[in-house]
């Protein structure tokens, strides 16, 4: 009797519910909408949506980088406080994640709309309302808002494990604080940065709700198209082809990001 077999139920589960379904997705992607015969037409049709793929990737990339720039100082600040305060601050980052992201996005819509809270305020001051919503910037804002905690958490986990002695050593060796950051803190937080970027990028690139609510009629992202093929226009074959390509795309992006962390894969929780 070996302990190894304990993983058997898990493996069976994962094969049945993740590997097999992906096989079915591939099968749908390679069959015809009407006849069910083998075809490459669905995958060929995906080429029409290259601009949409580009746009989705670009907005997600932008959001990931902004999340990093915003999230790093926050994680650094949390990691620098007393353990007790750390716990409270960390909890406050986690808390929004437990609340319905649909409603939180809707609250942003209420803030930014032409007849929303901010514009009502502007109007009551006698100024012209601003076009705050229904543009790409609003979509990026929505993504940054929703996925920022996913960036802060792994960064914090890495920064908290950082050995103070290393920093002291660098200081003793005559490094300025900026130099310490550049030579010690930053390189050591690379695994956190990578896993943070991944955790923001993956949901952001495939979102459909945020673009529907915050974007204009022209901001159709790849998630919207996939959703529409499964929920509004009955064409699961095209939807499956798009899903397949999206999956490959994400895998490539994640693989590229992982190149940075010297093969050391860390997914911090």
């Amino acid at each position, binding site marked *: 009797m070996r302990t*190894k077999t304990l993983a058997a139920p*898990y493996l069976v589960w994962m094969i049945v*519910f993740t590997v097999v379904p992906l096989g079915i997705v591939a099968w749908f992607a390679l069959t015809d909408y009407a006849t069910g015969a083998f075809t490459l037409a669905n995958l060929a049709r995906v080429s029409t949506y290259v601009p949409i793929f580009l746009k989705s990737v670009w907005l997600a990339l932008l959001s990931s980088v902004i999340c990093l720039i915003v999230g790093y100082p926050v994680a650094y600040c949390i990691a620098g406080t007393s353990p007790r305060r750390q716990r409270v601050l960390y909890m406050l980052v986690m808390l929004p994640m437990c609340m319905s992201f649909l409603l939180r996005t809707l609250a942003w819509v209420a803030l930014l709309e032409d007849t929303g809270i901010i514009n009502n305020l502007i109007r009551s001051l006698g100024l012209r309302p601003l076009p705050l919503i229904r543009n790409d910037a609003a979509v990026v804002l929505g993504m940054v808002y929703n996925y920022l905690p996913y960036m802060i958490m792994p960064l914090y986990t890495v920064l908290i494990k950082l050995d103070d002695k290393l920093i002291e050593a660098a200081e003793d060796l005559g490094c300025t604080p900026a130099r310490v950051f550049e030579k010690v803190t930053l390189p050591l937080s690379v695994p956190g940065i990578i896993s943070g970027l991944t955790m923001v990028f993956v949901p952001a690139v495939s979102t459909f709700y945020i673009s529907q609510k915050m974007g204009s009629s022209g901001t159709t992202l790849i998630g919207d198209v996939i959703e529409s093929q*499964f929920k509004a226009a009955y064409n699961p074959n095209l939807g499956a082809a798009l899903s397949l390509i999206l999956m490959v795309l994400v895998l490539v992006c994640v693989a590229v990001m992982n190149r940075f962390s010297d093969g050391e894969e860390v997914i911090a929780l």
Partner: protein
Amino acid sequence: MKTFNRVFTALVYLFLYIPMIVLAVASFSRGTDIAVWKGFTLGQYSALFHDGLLLPLLVNSVIVAVLSALIATVLGTMAALGIRAMSPRLRRTTMAITNIPMTNPEIVTGVSLALLFAFVGQMLKINSVMGFATLLIAHITFNLPYVILSVMPKLGQMDPNLRDAALDLGCTPVQAFFKVIIHEIMPGILSGALMAFTMSLDDFVISYFVYGPRFVTLPVEIYNYTKKPLQPKIYALFTLLFLVILLSMVVMNLLQARDERRRARSRVVFGGKGGRVG
């Protein structure tokens, strides 16, 4: 620099909580328009409690979250133990499979499961496969990796001699697990279970593809609601949920703090060097 950083952090926290404030304020407003304050009322809250639909949906969500977290934790902990004992090659393959739901976009996971369930339904000639079972399966599937990824590191930190010692002292492997190992990896199990619970409670994208008419969870219904004129009692529900989660987090925090203090004290008493506090 440090003050700048502090101010910046405070602003980011404000940014994170702005929508909560908007929704909480809206829950006390008389009108239906979220952007216009029309006077204070508690009417939304009483409407919420008289509403026969929303609260059962919340119960549904909690049922799925608890069950899926529980099953995922048991399966995941077993798997983590098993993976530890695997040969490096097998372990790499298993971890690659574990990473699939983590790196796969949620929409792809949802779509693929929906296709699987519909396919199985067709094979078995059952018209209404989608329902509680499919929802539960989907949630367990995306919860499992979280549990594994939080239990594995704890197993790694554990002193391997502990198990051997237990076995030498006459424990069966099962006893060794329940008497020794489980205590060592408990924090990992708990944080995995908690993570699974929260992910499951607020999951919308995957549930949206695998729910059926007889069993709907709250986020799915909220999505349906956001396509219609939104009823303000949803804001009331949101605010109440926020308070409940805040409260439970605070309680957990206090318990954890007490636990840590006690452990620190016992360490002093027993004169141990104290392990790494994870």
